[in-house]
């Protein structure tokens, strides 16, 4: 009896030892082999393996070379994409980023408003979003610094504590209890603040902005705000990024060839066709377009819906995939770390059951820094069956 018990205990111990091994192989794989992966140019490429090492992508190899080596995880029929990047997020900070006391407030940091332990971050991970840009609400002319952070719960999640400087043009900035109350007032104020900064006066962050040491993101409500931003900030090394979701497709004429990134979105199904066609129209003129989703206020799948609608109304699918990954990373100023599957980038990957631009594609698993942070076992089972 005692010998039997010992054998049972030994067997149990062996089994228990075996389990963590297989679990850790899925948790931190050495390579991922999937049906297709999204290359840096946004196209779907089959038959490759993504080799990971130390939390980063170390190389892309033909799938056959990697085979059944230790630590390799297979997702047959699936698509691997860089983790999605939402440029218009209020994760962990819904309502906490709105202040309209001062029209020019460059020292505000959105980082201070975020509850990093909020459960919405887990929901974002399950939607495939691995990096977010949280902005101070664009209700001031100079609204402050945005923060770029990953959705994973770790100490090194903040990529840029002091991200782009957010500026805003349009009616959201006007108030009845402080200047400005109009567009003409906004632009007169912006000109005087930039002139003072050029002379070396005023807030240090504004001086850094005009000298080119700081990137800027300008929210534009109407096409006339886009014109004004380009005119007033022409010699301020920027603006680097414009946020515009409107129906005036002829802004492409002024933006073509400048290198300014345009953030479009979020898109919803009830928007006018002209507005939905904007992303495609800009992209066709080789203007870099990033798409924004608005998690959590616009819903967990808003970023993918925006991309799908953009493609439906004329955007090239490869450009749309870049718009929610690599171009979005460029707009946030973190393209060296995230946004594409290439050697040296962080291993932030999302495994989709199909092309992520298809709304019927499901998230199977999400990796951040090479560690799996989300897995939908039931979806994986049905994906491997189908």
């Amino acid at each position, binding site marked *: 009896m005692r010998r039997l018990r010992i054998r049972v205990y030994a067997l149990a111990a062996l089994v228990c030892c075996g389990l963590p091994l297989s679990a850790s192989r899925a948790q931190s794989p050495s390579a991922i082999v999937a049906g297709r992966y999204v290359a840096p140019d946004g196209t779907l490429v089959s038959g490759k393996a993504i080799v990971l090492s130390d939390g980063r992508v170390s190389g892309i190899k033909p799938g056959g070379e990697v085979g059944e080596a230790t630590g390799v995880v297979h997702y047959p029929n699936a698509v691997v994409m860089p983790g999605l990047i939402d440029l218009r997020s209020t994760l962990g900070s819904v309502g906490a980023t709105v202040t309209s006391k001062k029209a020019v407030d460059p020292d505000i940091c959105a980082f201070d408003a975020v509850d990093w332990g909020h459960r919405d971050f887990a929901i974002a991970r399950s939607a495939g979003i691995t990096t977010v840009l949280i902005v101070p609400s664009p209700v001031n002319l100079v609204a402050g610094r945005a923060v770029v952070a990953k959705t994973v719960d770790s100490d090194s999640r903040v990529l840029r504590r002091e991200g782009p400087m957010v500026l805003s043009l349009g009616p959201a900035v006007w108030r*009845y*209890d402080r200047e400005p109350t*109009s567009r*003409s007032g906004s*632009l007169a104020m912006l000109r005087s603040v930039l002139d003072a900064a050029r002379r070396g006066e005023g807030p240090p962050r504004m001086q850094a902005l005009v000298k080119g040491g700081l990137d800027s993101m300008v929210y534009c409500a*109407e096409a006339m705000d886009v014109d004004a931003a380009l005119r007033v900030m022409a010699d301020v090394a920027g603006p680097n990024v414009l946020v515009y979701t409107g129906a005036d497709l002829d802004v492409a004429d*002024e933006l073509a060839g400048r290198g300014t990134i345009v953030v479009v979105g979020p898109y919803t199904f009830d928007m006018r066709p002209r507005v939905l066609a904007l992303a495609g129209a800009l992209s066709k003129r080789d203007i870099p377009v990033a798409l924004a989703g608005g998690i959590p206020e616009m819903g967990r799948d808003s970023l993918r819906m925006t991309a799908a609608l953009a493609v439906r109304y004329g955007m090239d699918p490869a450009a749309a995939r870049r718009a929610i990954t690599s171009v979005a990373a460029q707009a946030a100023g973190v393209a060296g770390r995230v946004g594409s599957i290439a050697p040296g980038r962080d291993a932030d990957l999302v495994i989709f059951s199909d092309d992520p631009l298809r709304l019927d594609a499901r998230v199977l698993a999400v990796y951040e820094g090479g560690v799996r942070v989300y897995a939908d076992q039931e979806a994986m089972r049905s994906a491997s069956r189908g």
Partner: protein
Amino acid sequence: MNEKANLGSWSITLLAAGCLLTMFSAAPASAGDDVVVLKAGVVHVGDGRAIEHAVVVVRNGRIAAVGPDVPVPGDARVIEMAEGSITPGLVEANAWVDPTDLLAPPPADAYTILNRFLHHHDPGHRDMTCCGSRCPRAYLHEAGKKCPICGWPDTAPRMAVGTNVGRVAVEQSSEVVPETRVLDGLNLRSPDFGRLARGGVTTAFVAPDTAAVIGARGAIVRTAGPMSQRVVREADAVQAVMSSDAFRRGQNNNLPMRHFVTFNTRRPVSRMGVDWVFRKAMYDAQRAGKGLPVSGADTPSPAALAALREILSGAVPVRMHARTQNDILSAFRLSREFGLPFTLVEGTEAYRCLDQLVSGHVPVVFGPIYVDAPGYRVYTGETDHNRVNTFKALLGAGVTTALSAHELRDEDGLARQALYAMRSGLKLEQVLPAVTATPAKLLGLGDELGTVESGKRADLIVWNGEPFAATSTPEVVMIGGEVVVDRRHG
């Protein structure tokens, strides 16, 4: 060689030279030239001349030749209106462009739209004082009249972000904002510009709303064409307001009543206040120019002071908006005090100040002509002594006068204003310059626009009859040689 033979050979040489010159002037368009030819029954040049059966040749956006016998290049496009006429494009010297055209909420019922347009407050709150109580004589409150009991409407609370705010584009954080520019708040894509172009207006001075005592600097823009060529001048004349609009338009200023103080609790609430704010701004600018400190109530911001000093130095032209005689005389008084030549705008009662206008050499941008005051004007109470022949009186006295339709469009627009002017007994040759050459000169564009003469920009209208007649419309409107409106093919 005798002299006769010499003369003969010289004559032949001259004849040959003459033939060569004629050949060159009749040469076909060279490759790359964009040539358009317009033909009509009569061309009204804009300076009083009318040329019968004239041909206008436009080359590369400029008028190359005008006349009855002008040689026409063979490969040019031809626009012909045998029963019609050609005039210069109309120049609107005081346009107001609706800033909310694209931003307006979907139209509600007619009463709401009317209220919004007339700057009425929310009807449910109109009789309430700022502390929430109701004036005991609320039933006597009448639009345009001030209540002697509670001071309504000056003391009523204003809806913070209400219907007033949206329709006024000028900066309202201060009554003195000459550092701001209308162009910054102007939507060049507004459908209002399409309406102007279809009405024959090709160039417009867009004025700020009359909400600030010293307001923004206006913009001179073309009404259609490629976006890169729309802006003619980014910051032109500054507009000062002498009329009650300074304290009634947009967010009305209010007196501090008990503890209720808002952004708009400020001067002016009366005409005395308007003059005070103007004087204080100019005195402070003069003090700042001498390096003296500026202080006290209503001190302009540093940016405003810099702009005011530019105005005092004469670098920025000044327009003064006034309707009633006393406001026009205020304009003269302030102009003399600070040495500021000005242009009078609107001038409803200008017929009562003809002597001063003539002796002061003050140009007038007059308009619109009306019997019943349109829009918000009727609620100012300043149009009671309006006369339909004021424009005729101004021209008759020799005052340089441009005619303006301000915010009126389509069937009430500038072309119709010219018709009304002719109805009071003026001829086309007297009225046409008032909507073409005179405003062009007032805007400093007299070399480029305003008449159909060789060398000027091809901003032209082809009418399907006599210009401004009730049965005529602008069939073809051309800006810089480009056809921007073409009604010919239905």
